[in-house]
């Protein structure tokens, strides 16, 4: 039950990452086109700027949990690895809980701040709140990734 739920959630996390990374292409092409038009014909593409920053937010926030799954968020492990195994696991559990608490705040405040937000973008009048909501979405899946790590550590301790 736990294993299959974990598999499903981790697959969703990966898919979110894949969705996020596809946005690199439009970002790349739009920015190139905008710069080329400006330099050659002194005209800009309306909203290129704000579209790029919204695409960046999709990419980064959807990738938050995926990067954790791939073990990309940097940490220094050489000291913990040298601790006695049991103590090392306890330390890891504590630090994981601390990370989870800050990610939980991101998730909760992500919802609060998104719902309060009424800003729209300057040129294209795109509402900002759905993108801000991605802070909560990214943090939610990141929280789950941390939870799986926590379960692994607790199991190691129980053995």
């Amino acid at each position: 039950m736990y294993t299959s739920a974990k598999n499903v959630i981790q697959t969703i996390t990966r898919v979110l990452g894949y969705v996020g990374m596809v946005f690199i292409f439009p970002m790349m092409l739009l920015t190139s086109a905008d710069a080329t038009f400006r330099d050659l014909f002194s005209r800009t593409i309306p909203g290129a700027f704000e579209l790029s920053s919204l695409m960046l937010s999709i990419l980064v926030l959807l990738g938050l949990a995926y990067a954790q799954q791939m073990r990309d968020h940097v940490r220094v492990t050489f000291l913990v690895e040298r601790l006695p195994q049991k103590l090392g696991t306890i330390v890891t559990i504590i630090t994981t809980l601390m990370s989870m608490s800050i990610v939980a705040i991101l998730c909760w405040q992500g919802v609060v701040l998104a719902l309060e937000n009424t800003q729209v973008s300057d040129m294209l009048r795109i509402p900002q709140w759905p993108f801000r909501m991605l802070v909560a979405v990214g943090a939610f899946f990141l929280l789950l990734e941390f939870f799986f790590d926590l379960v692994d550590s607790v199991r190691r301790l129980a053995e």
Partner: protein
Amino acid sequence: MIVDPVMIGILGSVSVFILIFLGMHIAFSMMFVGFVGLYILCAFEPAVAATASTMWEVASFYPYTVIPLFVIMGSLAGSSGMTRDLYSSFDKWTRKVPGGLAVATIGACGAFAAVSGSSVATAAAMGTVALPEMERFKYDPKLSTGSVAAGGTLGFLIPPSIGFVVYGMLTEQSIGKLLISGVLPGLLLAGAYASICVLWAVLYPQAAPRDLEPVTWKEKLTALNGVKEPLFIFLFVIGGIYTGFFTPDEAGAIGATILLVVATVKRKLTWPALFSSLTGSIRISVMVLMLVAGANVFSTFMALSTIPVQAANWVTSFDVSRYVILAMIILIYVILGCFLDAISMMVLTLPVVFPIILALHFDPIWFGVVAVLMMEAGLITPPMGLNLFTVAGVAKGVRLETIIKGTAPFLGAIIVVAIILTVFPNIALVLPKMMGK
């Protein structure tokens, strides 16, 4: 209860380091401590709101698009087969030089660095091409792996460079100027690395057996074709930044688009290569921007605690030459670089170090070059040098100790270049100074 902000700030700084060395993720430990600090110095509500809105602001800040764009530019360059062409071009020209293959490795790394922003990517890409070749000619593995690991660090100094982008973000300096300021010091460092290879081969000829097969002038001239492509992209992209035609973000986008077209036309772009370019780009971007988000929460707390100002006042009150303090900062970076990766090191130290540098009247752009040099040193210092592990992953059957010994002389070159830059700051500053006009 009256809390002394400075005391809280010191406690906070110490706890970040403790948490990091206990294995907590660096980005989250900075965010966590930053949040707790804001809670103590302000209140709960503003602290939670500031944390979440910092995350949003970092994720949606337009100038940061440069990170995914630079990363994808580098990995598309790698999959377009550029590394092999570069290496064989340089080999044709340096064959007569003692340690020619190692010199060619440095040259090709430098040239690849001109289209790639990441040191690790440069070392990995060049390692797969250069190491088998040096093994074939029975090079001492210390020299071969050392030159690849060190050559890879050039990716950080020669623009495009993620190192300068992060420095620019954290210190609010012009990223364009920083990138341009890396060009001459990058060439200087490449020259210093190459001299070390030559010297090594002269002192220990058995470490670098000569390849005596002659190269005709015709071959040499044809070999220049391998350099054309990266040179064109470099001149276009970095030249565009220099002349003010593009911002660094636009330069990254245009460079990536050109490379995408080149790789597709040359039929070098496979689906797996494209997929790994994309995943690489999102993974590195998320990792870097999460660190920046954590650092921003932490520096909001630091600013409230007044530590950066106090530290700058305290340091400038010493009756010593500012160069003594600079030397101490560099020493701290060398030590931290042994344990932390390059980006984390900047993110952790700059909130306090940068105000000190400004208070000592050092040029912020010039210090950016020194900081990036120190990040490079951190990539090849044990036990946690990322390039050492990268090369160990590519060079099968070579022990990590061998690679560490091999990179040691190159570390000396970095320090020498840092000293030269301190004596002649204009090496870094002359190009960016001409930019504004």
